[in-house]
């Protein structure tokens, strides 16, 4: 057993409280990596426990969100490396999830955004999600992915352009759906969102 006698219980409590607030974000990030919701929750749980076990190496007051995202991401890629078949399965699961909509009321465009995201190279998708949805600065995203800041910036900008052209050309993997429809729907919804709030 690891000796934790020098560990301050108050410190553990503070760590745990902060970790709990990050669970929803870890789940969301895992969902973008795995596609499949069940696999994503397994990944998020593993990452949460890894973070808990490594709490002695975390410095309170530094960015715990970025730290846990890095743990989750490393976990995801090391699991993926462990079995080559996994990527095949992930792909299939992702396609199933990308096509399936949990909420029948969900707007069409969100579906198409997911499809579009699924067509991006993984490193571009990940960069775009961290910066564009996760609320991370380029520097934090660079730390999470273990690459240079410039690399993140170029990945994000390439991802943005690619995603836009995918949505505009209707080039996502789905039959039917006229070109430009996805983008039009997204524009209309953005407009509605900004009016509602």
């Amino acid at each position, binding site marked *: 057993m690891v000796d934790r006698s020098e560990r301050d219980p108050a410190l553990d409590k503070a760590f745990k409280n902060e970790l709990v607030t990050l669970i929803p974000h870890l789940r*969301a990030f895992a969902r973008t990596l795995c596609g499949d919701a069940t696999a994503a929750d397994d990944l998020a749980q593993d990452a949460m426990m890894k973070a808990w076990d490594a709490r002695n190496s975390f410095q309170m007051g530094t960015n715990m969100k970025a730290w846990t995202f890095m743990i989750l991401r490393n976990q995801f890629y090391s699991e993926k490396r462990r079995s080559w078949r996994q990527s095949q399965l992930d792909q299939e699961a992702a396609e199933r999830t990308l096509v399936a909509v949990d909420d029948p009321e969900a707007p069409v465009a969100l579906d198409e955004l997911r499809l579009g995201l699924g067509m991006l190279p993984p490193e571009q998708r990940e960069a775009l999600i961290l910066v564009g949805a996760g609320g991370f600065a380029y520097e934090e995203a660079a730390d999470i992915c273990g690459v240079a800041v410039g690399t993140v910036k170029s990945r994000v900008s390439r991802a943005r352009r690619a995603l836009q052209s995918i*949505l505009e050309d209707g080039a996502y993997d789905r039959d039917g759906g006229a070109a430009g429809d996805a983008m039009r729907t*997204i524009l209309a*919804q953005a407009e509605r969102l900004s009016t509602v709030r």
Partner: protein
Amino acid sequence: MKEPPGGQDVLSDQNDNMKGRPSEPDAEDMIEQQPQSSTKARGPDAAALDEARLRQQAIGVRLRQMFDEVVNEPVPDEFLDILRRADKSAETE
């Protein structure tokens, strides 16, 4: 906040007061004005740039919404159970 050059009308003042978030009034103004004023006043290049920026903003909004949808889901009990168990075993060590 950056004001788009030219083509502002009375609507934008009203919108700015009504909304807290800095980036969105621009998007909305541009949606409303896109077909007429901005195209004519600043030529097709500027209009195309506006259009591209608007589209990127719209994608950004959807992207955040997609992510936030999962963030706002209730956390399954399993997560907290696992953490509670781990915490307990740490205490008894």
